[in-house]
């Protein structure tokens, strides 16, 4: 009798036990995701602050060597402590295979562009008021233009990337944009935006 009672209790417990559908939902506890980080003014302010920070890093404080590339990266340079991170020997230091000088600036500047694209791309779906939309778009476009200008200054023709990358694209064919297209990005509608809000 005891056995049967116990088994009935056990059986009913088992039948009623099963995990909720939402048991496996994943919500990160300690980091933001793109779905919830580009909604309010404060979110976009944070994104723009990061652009300022990235620019400061690229030109001034990423370390004791890379910001000085804008000063030392020329034909006549002698470094008393020879190393490829310090322009010696030049063939090695500026080789496209190098993971130092050429790659670090390229990565840093394209990150500024990518973040700008993300801001511009996510404005339509956000809860920003119309005036804030204009402001955020202008700021992002300013930084994007500045980054492209710097890239052209350092590398010549570079690919133009003007949309946010959302899906993984592993094989992007890279083409260098002609000067006219780049000029258009720097001089065209973006410049007028700037003029209109800095009056």
């Amino acid at each position, binding site marked *: 009798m005891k056995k049967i009672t116990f*088994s009935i209790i056990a059986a009913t417990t088992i039948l009623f036990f099963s995990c909720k559908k939402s048991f496996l939902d994943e919500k990160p506890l*300690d*980091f933001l995701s*793109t779905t919830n980080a580009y909604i309010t003014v404060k979110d976009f302010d944070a*994104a723009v602050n990061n652009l300022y*920070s990235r620019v400061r890093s690229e030109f001034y404080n990423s370390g004791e060597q890379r910001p000085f590339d804008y000063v030392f990266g020329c034909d006549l340079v002698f470094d008393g402590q*020879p*190393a490829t991170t310090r322009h010696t020997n030049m063939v090695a230091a500026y080789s496209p295979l190098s993971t130092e000088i050429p790659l670090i600036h390229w990565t840093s500047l394209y990150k500024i562009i990518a973040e700008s694209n993300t801001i511009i791309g996510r404005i339509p779906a956000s809860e920003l008021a119309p005036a804030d939309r204009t402001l955020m778009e202008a700021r992002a476009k300013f930084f994007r233009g500045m980054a492209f200008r710097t890239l052209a200054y350092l590398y010549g023709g570079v690919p133009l990337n003007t949309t946010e990358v959302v899906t*993984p694209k592993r094989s992007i064919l*890279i083409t260098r944009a002609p000067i006219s297209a780049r000029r258009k990005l720097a001089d065209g509608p973006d410049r007028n935006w700037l003029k209109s809000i800095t009056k």
Partner: protein
Amino acid sequence: MKYRILLKGIVTITFLQVAILTTATTANANNKSGVTTVLNKKLWFAGISQADISITGKVIDEKTKSPIPGVSVKVKNGTTTAVTDENGLYKISVPNEQTVLLFSYIGYDVEEVTVGNLKNINVVLKSSQANLDEVVVVGYGTQKKADVTGSVVRANLDDFRNAPTTNVANLLQGTVPGLNVGQVNRAGATPGISIRGQNTLGGNQNVLIILDGVQYNGSLTSINPDDIASIDVLKDASATAVYGAQAANGVILITSRKGAIGRTRISFSSQYATQKPNIDLKPMTRDEYLDHIKYLYYDQAFLAPDFTQPNPAFDLVSKVDASMKDAQGNLLPNDFSWYDEATKTGAIVDNQLSVSGGTDKINYLLSGSLTRNSGFIKNDVFKRKTIRANIETKATDWLTIGLQSFGTFVNEDGVEPNFVDINLISPLILPWDNNGNLKINPFNTNVTNPLLNYQADDYDRHNYFFANVYGNVQLPVKGLSYKISFGNNYRLDFKNISNMYDANLTGQASKETTTYYDYTFDNLLTYNKVIGKHSFTGTLLYGAIERDNSYTRAYATGFSRLTLGYDNLQQGTNRFAISNAWKETLNYQMFRLNYNYESKYLFTGTLRRDGFSGFAENNKYGIFPSISAGWDISKESFFKVNWVDNLKLRVGYGIAGNQTTRYSSLANVGVSAAYVFGDGGSTQFGQQVNSLSNPDLRWERTTGANMGLEFTLFKNRLSGVIEYYDTKTTDLLYSVNIPVVTGFSNILTNIGQLNNKGIELSLNSKNINSGEFKWTSALNFARNVNKVVKLLGDLNGDGVEDDLPQSGLFVGQPTAVIYDYQVNGIWQVGDQIPTGYSPGTYRIVDQNGDGTINASDRIVLGSSAPAYRISLLNNFQYKNFTLSIFLNSVQGGDKSYLAGNTPRLIRDDNSIRNNYLSGIDFWSPDHPDGKYPRSIVSATLNPPLFQNRSFVRLQDVSLSYKFSGKLIERMKLQNLNVFVSGRNLATWTKWDGWDPETNQGLTNDGRPVFKGYSVGLNVTF
């Protein structure tokens, strides 16, 4: 004590007949039951003497029931012997009724029978292939080894229990073919473990560890090795598929001890071991150090044009760094060994105590241990306390409930000196200034004195709590049982540290706490049915797991006084707090069917469905099936090869998965302090997208086929297993490099296909088994071949699968492929050297002969994975002595098991000042055969020199002596043995550097592996 003897006396005298019958039919050869020995002792003292008794009888084989000729019948502790004839009959004279007769024959367990008042004693000898009736733990249950159809191996722990190690994983090193355990060089460290080959690129590489049925992802240092009864390794997909999405890398099942029915066992063991480096590698001393500076200036220290004649005008002192000269500009006279100052002989002290016992209603095991390992590097200390309680009771005849619980408290207080810096500092510099205080920056650079770490106040604790409560219910339906188990893990980690010299000498103190909790809730329904010769077992599982982790760190810098340290962070001027947390959940179901016909034809099929919160939105559940079959050929009536005792063939096929890590399918937006606007502004925070999302991310799928042949030959003289496996892993998780133009350098996605094929062999032989001397050997061999088959497809349209050179992945090559420049010696003074290179730099082979050395001159040089692993264990027993010797080897041939090991110097500010390891074979003009490059300027390309890591190591030697006879009986002990053992006693290798197995070459940031000698004793009351 007296009470026990009295009780035993009553029991033995009253139940004499029962006792004799029990001992006569005891199947187990390990016949040291207390009743029998005490019986003998008591009645001998009574001193009864009678006329010789003549005993006859027949000896038969338990399995075949046929008589065994040639069986040796001996009077125990006497000299009379007899031998059975061709009918298995024997006749022997014994002095009295208390005599014990021993029946022994090669390949069978020894039987002991007390004569008593019987004149005709028939004995059944059991074949000592006890390993076939042995039970192994498979996922969610146990199975007789004879019925297993997948690749399951029980590790041999006994021969390694006396080794001077503190970690469970060390007991497994080299003992199971296909189970690869690495080497450790730190006190209390856990080595890396992998099973078979690498079948992931960027995914989780950890083996799944199950402790008493509960998933265990804590550190293995928390498990007391002495508490472990057995470790079973599941190697192939058909065996691991029951664990579904976490099983692709193999599964290790650890089972803790439980009390045995019968006499209570109180067990105590103690061990002391010393540890020293197994290689004599140290930094340079004064003379060699000064020489190395001279050679960096070889163009001035020697005369042109060949730079082999010393230049008398060269002033070495002028080139030495100012920190090593006194005020007058003379070299300081010191030759100080920082290495000796920071190291000592390591030691391990380990004490274990356990009490266990039981009746048929309840069994229990209580144990505790204290372990202390002070490492070779000062302040590398590991202390561990463990306690365990395993209790199981048969509450009613249909309900068994039990508890397995343990607590482990690890203490790793103390900050060791930074070993890299110890090797780096010049012997001309003393750690102390003239007042006896430690110099803060001995080099007058930002390198701080490594000995400063001694005064850091460090509280580094890890506490592990485990409890598994389970209940086994026999349901009213015959053969149906239900098991419910609820296992919990709780961990608390504390790291509190205060150090006056941190934060740029302004002082820093911090407190870090990590709490982790998980539960595993399993419901298992098992149904056994036997119909005639067919037996079926069905298993149904429904379970869930939840894991929570939380981390907090508070720290402060800028302390004027650190008297109170980390317990009063408010005294710091700058205060910081950070925290984070994560959570994971799993939900799974599994169904398994086992079928066996007379244990001759075996079949197992399983199906598992796994859901995991970390799986991407579109792929929340995975299905993992498997199927396997076995055929015991030797049980067939047509099989009449009489030198084959047992032959079993098994095949298995299954699919297992490797989970994505939590949150990996989500885009991650990182927030950090970004900018200050204007003077006096406050910190503004910024956010940045750090990773892209991928809602289609899937788990990795490993599909594997395994074929194994188990055999026992020559009356159990030779037994073994040979296995062949072929696995294919698809949907590999990999961070594929994408052009940086996108703003991201990589994206986690599923790509390609990776194959692993291999062969494993395990052989056990009983070489000599004559009376008092026994010699057995065990050989293990494993070879794995790994190959990348597919990656991203054919994107460049050339009809062939594309490689990913910048990620180091090539189709047709192993994941561990080495694709680099080929070095062909060193450019000498006077050679025709191309631009970008100079004397003392490596000469790179121009593979494509185009006259320039560039990226197109890289080729596949070999692989960093081993070619094969082999180990040999020899076990000798002579009377009460047991000696076991274990050799372990990992070999690479010419092209495998390679690693870059390239000390390289150019003349720059740091290389003139720093110290390096002694005896490095650097090039110089007067030593043109030097192996390693040393030049004045850097070359355009500086490729590594790949060297072979193959080695053979005398990994374990253990000699033990087991006391027996009067001493044991007088002290009322069940067992007493003492032992000496050694670990890593000798290593034979061509590798230059710290150790081939840890892959550390001639670098300053390596640490030695330890050679250890230990002595200890085990006693059981």
